[in-house]
Structure formats: C-alpha cells, structure tokens
C-alpha cells in the first residue's frame, strides 16, 4: 500500500469521516453540511472513541495518555504538585488545567502525540534508511520519533498551562483573594517554563537542526494563536470579533493547526523522508487539527440535548460564518436583541471562561 493510501486511511481509523483534505473550507452551506456529516461520528458514544484510541495505542506500542508527564519524574514535579495542591479551594485556572491533565482521562486525549506516532509508523523508513541505521526502532517507530511525539505534547501542555494565567487588575471579589491568584500565576508560569525547557532539551538531543527550527516555529505560531484568542475587540467593546472566515482560518491554524502540522512534518524529516512526503505529512497534521477544532466548535449546535444554558464561543467557526453571511451590522443587532430579551448570558471572563468549556485537552 502506498504511503498516500496509508495516510488517507488514518483519519477513518481515528473515527473521522473520509479524507480530511476534502473537508476544507469554501465558505458555503455545502461545506457546513459536509462538516456536519461528522455528526454521525461525534454522537457515537465515548466508548467508541475510547476503543478507537486504544486500538491506535496498540499500533504504536503503548498507552500515550501520560506521555508529557513521564519526563517529569523529578524534584521539580513534586515541587510543582505540592504547590498546585495549595491552590485547591481557589479559583485559579491552573487547578482546572492540572486536574484535566491528571485525573480526567476522557479529556486527556493526547491526540497530537498519538497522531505523530501513527504517521511515523505509517510512513515507515525512507529510501535513505541507511543513514538511519543507528536509530533504535521499536514497533516500526524510531525512538527519535517517539521523542518528538513527547516533545509535541510538552509544547502543547506548556501553552495550555500558560493560557491559564490571569490578569491581576481584572480580578473581581468573586475570584477570591489576590494572593491566591498571584501564587497560582507564579506556579503556572514556572510549570509552563519547566515543560518548555524539557521540550527544548529534548529537541537538542535529536541532533537535527531542521527539526528544532520546525518545532520552534510551531511554538511561535502557537503563542501568536493564543495571543489572538485572548484579544477581544476591546476598543469597540463588542463581544465578538469582526473577522471573516479566512481570518478565522489563519488564526486557528496558528493556535491549533501549526503544532500538529509541523510535528508530523518533523517526524518525516527525522526518518529522512523527502520534501513531498514531508509536505503530505504537514497537510495531514494541519487538516486533522483544524477539523478537530471545527468539530469541537460545532458541538454546542448539534448536541441532542441542548439546554438553554449551552455555552459556545462567540468566535467559534459557526458563529464567524453566520456573521459573514449576515453581515456584521445585522449580527450585532441580533446580539443586542438577545441581550434585551435576557437570553444572552455570557461568562464574565470570556473568552477564557467560555472557551474552557469547549477545550478538549
């Protein structure tokens, strides 16, 4: 089976419908219905998803749930853990993030790492395998590629932790004592930096400067993406950005697509695959991540049991498209009408608060 065929089988294996390449945007209703056909997949039980993941994990040789925590068997981690425990009872976001990483296995789907491992195995050795003959290979995956998968998760987790920093001058009395938030911020920065430092060290050990550059630029993209997520149109005091779907695509690529895309490409580079294969892997990773995000954005709109208090992000894909069709003025008017009727109740510290509802780890 050719590499191309193998790559196209993967998303189906992971529960996606069809080739991710076709799931790409043209701002039209056709596309929405295509993405909506995911509904069939997403309303299947969590048990189905878990089964798919565990089969994928068998392929790569081990469970990947605690990948990014494995390297943290160190003094620093027990230090961090002790400090995070002090946050129990406070409202600092780090507590939610930490809980999600350690206890909540349903949300702790370390998809990125798993995808990197799968694509490494699918691609197999390259025609340049003679230059890789010193690398260890276990279950069809080079140890450097496994290391890369871990590094990807480290970078993702580091930014997840850094996203939870709170602005001290925006705190309300309902957020609790200032010093709890300051302390939480401190631990969040240190933990995130610790994870990043581990990622950098891991990258250095790979002894491949192209891979370092790829992942470093993915980190830069991710930081910019998170930055955009946080910026609201404060000037106009509107609660929703005036962006069209193409801007949304660009921003979402930065915050969600770049890491997986570049990581998949880097995995190919490690096995010394050529530019064509690297580009294929890049596109695969990008589309996987983007479609996952879009699916996530869709959830509040297609769940069977939508209650009145379903929250959704006002900069999520369906909303952005809706705004683009209607035009900004009409959309702002609709928001106003909903507010008047008392039907719009958004979390005070949105987008952070609202976003967290939808964020699968």
């Amino acid at each position, binding site marked *: 089976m050719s590499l191309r065929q193998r790559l196209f089988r993967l998303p189906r294996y992971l529960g996606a419908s069809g080739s991710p390449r076709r799931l790409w945007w043209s701002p039209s209703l056709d596309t929405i219905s295509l993405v909506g056909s995911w509904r069939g997949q997403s309303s299947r039980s969590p048990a189905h998803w878990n089964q798919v993941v565990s089969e994928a994990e068998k392929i790569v040789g081990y469970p990947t749930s605690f990948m990014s925590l494995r390297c943290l068997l160190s003094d620093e981690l027990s230090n961090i853990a002790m400090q995070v425990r002090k946050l129990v009872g406070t409202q600092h976001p780090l507590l939610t993030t930490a809980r999600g990483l350690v206890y909540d296995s349903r949300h702790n789907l370390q998809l990125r790492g798993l995808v990197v491992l799968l694509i490494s195995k699918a691609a197999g050795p390259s025609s340049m395998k003679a230059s890789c003959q010193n690398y260890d290979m276990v279950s069809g995956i080079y140890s450097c590629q496994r290391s890369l998968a871990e590094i990807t998760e480290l970078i993702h987790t580091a930014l997840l932790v850094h996203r939870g920093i709170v602005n*001290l001058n925006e705190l309300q009395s309902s957020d609790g004592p200032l010093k709890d938030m300051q302390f939480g911020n401190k631990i969040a920065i240190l933990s995130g930096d610790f994870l990043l430092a581990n990622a950098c060290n891991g990258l250095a050990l790979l002894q491949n*400067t192209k891979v370092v550059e790829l992942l470093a630029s993915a980190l830069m993209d991710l930081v910019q993406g998170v930055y955009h997520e946080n910026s609201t149109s404060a000037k106009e005091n509107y609660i929703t950005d005036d962006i069209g779907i193409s801007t949304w695509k660009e921003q979402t690529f930065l915050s969600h697509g770049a890491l997986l895309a570049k990581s998949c490409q880097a995995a190919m580079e490690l096995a010394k695959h050529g530019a064509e294969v690297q580009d294929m892997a890049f596109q695969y990773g990008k589309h996987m991540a983007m479609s996952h995000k879009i699916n996530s954005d869709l959830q509040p709109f297609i769940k069977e049991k939508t209650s009145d208090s379903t929250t959704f992000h006002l900069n999520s894909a369906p909303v952005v498209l809706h705004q683009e069709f209607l035009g900004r003025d009409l959309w702002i008017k609709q928001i106003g009408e909903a507010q008047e009727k008392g039907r719009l109740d958004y979390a005070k510290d949105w987008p952070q608060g609202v976003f967290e509802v939808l964020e699968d780890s």
Partner: protein
Amino acid sequence: MRTLERDVQASQRSIALIAEMIHTASLVHDDVIDDARSRRGKHTVNKIWGEKKAVLAGDLILSAASIALARIGNTTVISILTQVIEDLVRGEFLQLGSKENENERFAHYLEKTFKKTASLIANSCKAVSVLGCPDPVVHEIAYQYGKNVGIAFQLIDDVLDFTSCSDQMGKPTSADLKLGLATGPVLFACQQFPEMNAMIMRRFSLPGDVDRARQYVLQSDGVQQTTYLAQRYCHEAVREISKLRPSPERDALIQLSEIVLTRDK
C-alpha cells in the same frame, strides 16, 4: 600561513542576539513571578499590558531565540544553549525552595546564582568559542571566564540591593528581602547574628522582618565579605582569560571583569 580570524562571524553575532533574547524572556517572566512594578527604570511588561500578555511575550521571545539558534545549523551549539534554558528554570525552582541547614544554604545560593545568572554567560561564551575554533581547551577557558564573571556580577548585584538607594537602581532596593530571598550579604551576616536564622527560615514574612534584616546586614560585614568573594571570582576569570593570546579583545574582557566589581548600578 593561516590568516588570523579577527572578525566576528555572523553565527557568533547571532549567539550574542540569542543570549540577549533568552535573558530578556527570562526577565519578562521573572517580573510576573515577582509582581514587579519596574525594571531598568521603566514599567514592567506585566504592569503595562497585564500578566497574560507578559507570559506570552516571554514565550514568543524564547521561540524566536530557538528559531535563530536552529538556523545557525550547529547541533553542539544548540545543546549548549538549551542547557541555559533548563538552568534558568531550575534556578527559579531553587529559589522557591530553601535549605534548613546553614551550611547547605551557601552552596544552595551559589548553585542558584550559577543557574540563574552565570550559566547564560558561561555557555554563550562557550558557544561562540565552539563556532570560532575546534580546540576544547579554548572552549573551557571561555566557559570558565563567563562562569566566574557571571557569578561575580550576581554577587555584586546582591550587594547593591543593600548599598544603593532606589533612584540609582532600576528596581527598588531590599527587593530580595521583600521577595523572601536570603542572598550573600544576608548569609554572611547570619554568621555574626544567629538571630537572623528564624527570619531566613520564614523568608522575612513577618512585619518588620525586612527592616530588621537590613539593619543586621548593614551592621555586619556581610557586604564586605560578599564583595571580597566577588573579587575572587573576578580574579579567577582574569586568570582564565589570560591563557588566551594577547589581543585588544582580551584586554577588553579583563577590563569588563573589573567593571563588574566597580559598578554602582
């Protein structure tokens, strides 16, 4: 005969930039951690733009530094400088914890000082020497020079926290005490005034602790001892760098280590 390579290579210039970027990224994060209001006489990033943006800014600078580092194309140099990133973080963690035992405290302080300050200088010097010549003896000289100057620099910085007044420094004084940190002058003073032990252990957290500790330090010879220690590190730096052949650059490096000792801000 081989022409003497007198010009700085582009890759070495790049290391200088990268070192500054790593340093800046760590300062931006440190200022959020310490909830600092000012740095180098200006408002901190976190005070102007908030903590969230400050943390992201630090991450961005770090990623830019990493990209530049990768583009140099030398895996040894990448390893040397990523060690710095790890040391910086470990240094912060060392600062979070404290040692019960007086004897361990000084070793802990020097280790923290190396990781937080000297590692960057030592390893950047080593990195440029790796790019400049293949001789490991030279790499070690560069590393030792950087390490000794770095430690001396931090020791003097710790002294200035006690001896200067706030309009000369970019940050307000007794800053370390207020953060609960026991630096060189404090540790030396404690040998003369054992009453300080209790304050050190509770990280100067009770009202009046900071002022009392400051008084003890100024009464003791803590400042002098720390300065003397810094001098010894500088002499070691000079001794190392003197192993290189004479040049205007070597003279500058010797002068630099003297400036470290005599600066007042």
